[in-house]
């Protein structure tokens, strides 16, 4: 409305074009909700791709998901859920004018966000070490660690920026402490604390991974009990490096492959027949089908074998369809006869989606950390009050959405089987 309508005193936090705080709050609230709608739609494309590819090749998703560590994923889920709680408490504190509670809860939320990223960095770097990359670059190999602590170079790379920020923020905090600017000092120490959270997550994740690797190795030594344990590798009963390598191999080979490998080792005949089928490009799908019962019959009749055969059958059919496309663009892997390696590469489609989804989610977490830092700055300067807490509320809603997306991602990616 016209400005003489605003003869009444405008509180300083109300923008000039709003009539009153209620209108401003409502506009912001609607704005953030609409923004969240766009965010959901943004992710919906990825969920859509996930559904399509999982529907068309469910066995690959089951296999691939075994590469993901449920414990680390679970820890991250708990961390994010907890951060949602502290965020909610922060909103309440802003409404009740409890400035200290607000500041501390914002800080805890930020630290949780950073822990999440730290754990994520461990997960990512571990996969990169093993060549578990997107479809086109997928090149799984067993990590060639020796004994002792191994820290991936990728983890170092991912940690460079957090380390720099940690130093900068700490220095900032100290400098402002010296110059007696308490508010700025508190703000910078808060940021430094946040970056500390990253290293807490990264170190914690790393320790867990090391322990896990050792535990798996130990389990192998004592002739395994693990349900995903593969007995085929127990023949390698050597000692020292050799054994360590074997245990790592079994640890990092998804269960279905291991079964296939057993099968191939066990009945070479069957495997060669399969290969023959694949070599002949002109063979129709019907031919394949007619062969399949034979090979299934040759299998021991165990459940796992049936499952494996089914997945093989699917793969064979797909190969025929894709052979031309593959040749044309010089795709890695000789499609005329699909090797074990090429079959593994198919798993890459899962990781393509995995990296897109979790990567985009991580970007949202980082954006959330920036927004939270801004809130922290304003909270420390006492901008929020019971009649003006909109920004805390809006960022809170955004943060809950980020959390919620992870709540969907975790079971969809980690808990398939």
């Amino acid at each position: 409305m016209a400005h003489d309508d605003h003869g009444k005193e405008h509180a300083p936090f109300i923008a000039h074009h709003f009539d009153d705080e209620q209108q401003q709050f409502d506009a912001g609230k609607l704005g953030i909700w609409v923004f969240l709608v766009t965010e959901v739609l943004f992710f919906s494309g990825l969920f859509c791709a996930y559904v399509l590819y999982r529907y068309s090749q469910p066995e690959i998703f089951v296999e691939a998901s075994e590469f993901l560590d449920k414990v680390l994923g679970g820890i991250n889920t708990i961390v994010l859920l907890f951060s949602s709680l502290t965020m909610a408490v922060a909103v309440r504190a802003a409404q009740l004018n409890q400035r200290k509670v607000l500041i501390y809860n914002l800080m805890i939320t930020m630290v949780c966000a950073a822990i999440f990223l730290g754990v994520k960095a461990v997960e990512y770097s571990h996969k990169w070490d093993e060549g578990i990359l997107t479809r086109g670059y997928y090149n799984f190999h067993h990590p060639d660690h020796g004994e002792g602590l191994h820290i991936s170079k990728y983890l170092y790379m991912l940690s460079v920026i957090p380390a720099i920020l940690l130093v900068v923020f700490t220095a900032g905090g100290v400098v402002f402490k010296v110059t007696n600017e308490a508010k700025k000092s508190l703000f910078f120490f808060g940021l430094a604390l946040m970056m500390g959270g990253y290293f807490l997550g990264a170190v914690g994740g790393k320790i867990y991974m090391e322990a896990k690797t050792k535990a798996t190795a130990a389990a192998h030594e004592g002739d395994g009990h693990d349900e995903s344990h593969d007995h085929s590798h127990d023949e390698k009963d050597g000692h020292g490096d050799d054994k360590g390598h074997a245990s790592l191999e079994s640890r990092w080979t998804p269960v279905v492959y291991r079964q296939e490998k057993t099968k191939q080792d066990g009945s070479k005949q069957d495997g060669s027949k399969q290969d023959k089928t694949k070599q002949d490009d002109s063979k129709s799908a019907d031919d394949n089908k007619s062969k399949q019962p034979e090979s299934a019959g040759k299998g021991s009749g165990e459940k796992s074998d049936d499952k494996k055969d089914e997945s093989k059958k699917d793969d064979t059919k797909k190969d025929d369809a894709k052979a031309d496309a593959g040749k044309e663009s010089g795709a890695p892997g000789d499609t005329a006869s699909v090797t074990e390696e090429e079959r593994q590469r198919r798993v890459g489609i899962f990781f393509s989606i995995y990296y897109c989804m979790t990567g985009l989610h991580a970007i949202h977490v980082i954006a959330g950390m920036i927004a939270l830092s801004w809130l922290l700055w304003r909270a420390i300067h006492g901008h929020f009050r019971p009649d003006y807490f909109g920004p805390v509320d809006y960022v809170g809603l955004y943060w809950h959405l980020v959390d919620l997306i992870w709540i969907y991602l975790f079971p969809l990616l980690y808990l398939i089987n």
Partner: protein
Amino acid sequence: MGIAVDRTKTFGNAIDGDNYLNASSGIKSWMFTLDHKRIGVMYLIGVTFALFLAGIFALVLRSELFTANKMFLTEAQYNQMFTLHGAVMVFAFIIPSIPAALGNFVLPMMLGVKDVAFPRLNLCSFYLWVIGTLFLMLTLMMGGLDTGWTFYTPYSLKTNTGVIFATFGAFVLGFSSIFTGLNFLVTINTMRPPGMTWFKMPLFLWSLYATSIIQILATPVLGITLLLLLAERIMQIGIFNPAYGGDPVLFQHFFWFYSHPAVYIMILPGMGVISELISVHSRKKIFGYSFIAFSSVAIALLGFLVWGHHMFTSGQSALVTIIFSAITFTVAVPSAVKVFNWLATMYKGCISLTTPMCYALSFIFLFGIGGLTGLFLGTLSTDIHLHDTYFVVAHFHFVMVGGTLTALLGGLFHWWPKMFGRMYNEFVGRIGCFLVFAGFNLTFFPQFVMGSRGMPRRYARYDPEFEIFHQWSTFGAFVLGIGILISFVCLAYAAFKGPRCAGNPWGASSLEWQSSSPPDFHNFVHNVALCDPYDFSTQELDEELDTFVHREFMEPEEKPVPEVEPQHT
């Protein structure tokens, strides 16, 4: 009854008084402005630049097609030309043209408020537009782009041209569009003045609201699609790449899930502008207000269900194809509702053939043809024949240029006196309008004929039998170009040298006219008097100011009336 105001200050010409143009000065005062009017003007300059750039590409294309054989472009250069023409026109010009340029200026004023809900987001949206457009320009220097504006996979994964830059540019432009839509939606929802109910809003606001819904619901999907395309190029994720078992048709689905609704982002605001122009320049209450309002929303919602009609020949299942075809026909219904309502509004109206009205009339004609030829393409059997021919090209140019560009020009002429406080030259304006209309038809009508005879689109060389049509088309393109140039020169001249005019030269009764021209920095010097936006009897001619003033303000000044709230009816 009546409100005592200084009418000269409130409704007069404010070029020498306080207005948004002279509220502050210096380049920074424009670059960092949060004023929706200035942002609107900056957008206007920006999209005009994009229009001329992409228009030059179009003229180069048409010149190349003057003969059946090579004139001066190689095939590869030709591919890059039509790609950039399409990409710049669609992403950098048409989508932001009416909503972001005109809408930014007019929307808050139509609501009688000082600004949009989030002025900073508004400015951010403008700069995202600038960045996105710069990336599109950058592709010019980085080896061009030859995928067509649709970036179809798998070709866009193989070509060595600047897919990454262009895709990123379109991605950023998408966010610009989302933020504009979000801003407008929130503004209309939460800032309508008391008394202005949904069905008392001007129809332009309804169409902007419907547009915002599409921008919010469709554009994020484009965002993720382009992001996946980028990931596909950079990280080989294999989702769209058949070599890795991906599905290129999935890309088409994702792309058209945005880009078909985006067609309505382009045309709906144009329809809103036309609703205003027809009513004001016929001086008659709009016919079937609620039908026009609901048809905008209906178009927005139905627009989400028809994307598959771009893929009738891409290998969809027959059932899906039939369903998409059927829904496509239903979109014609709300569009036709609008056209008939406009015609009924003009019936027995007091039509004055001002330049905006001339554009509105051309819009109805051109949009009519554009819309009806769409039905040919929505029909499965004819689409098999017409798919990817010049018939398609002519169809969407009738809608986008004949529709949106015409509406934009009409809207500019209509609101120009408000924006700059100066009147354009009516004679030159009409000449420009005539040239645009004639040139446009000359360009694209032959293309319908060519297309139905089988001339495929996107070909640099063609059979000599089509030469005559192409030559007509090229002549027409130059006439159209000259028409657009004359129109913009006319407007630019008017902005600086035109005769001054006061607040409400058209006697329109929507709220933006209850201000001085150019408007004050705060839009309104005085409380606005709410009234029916299409009841022109509320406006009375103020002889002294030579402009129309709401009758509430016409009472003699000496009666000291206390400040009252706006009329709540």
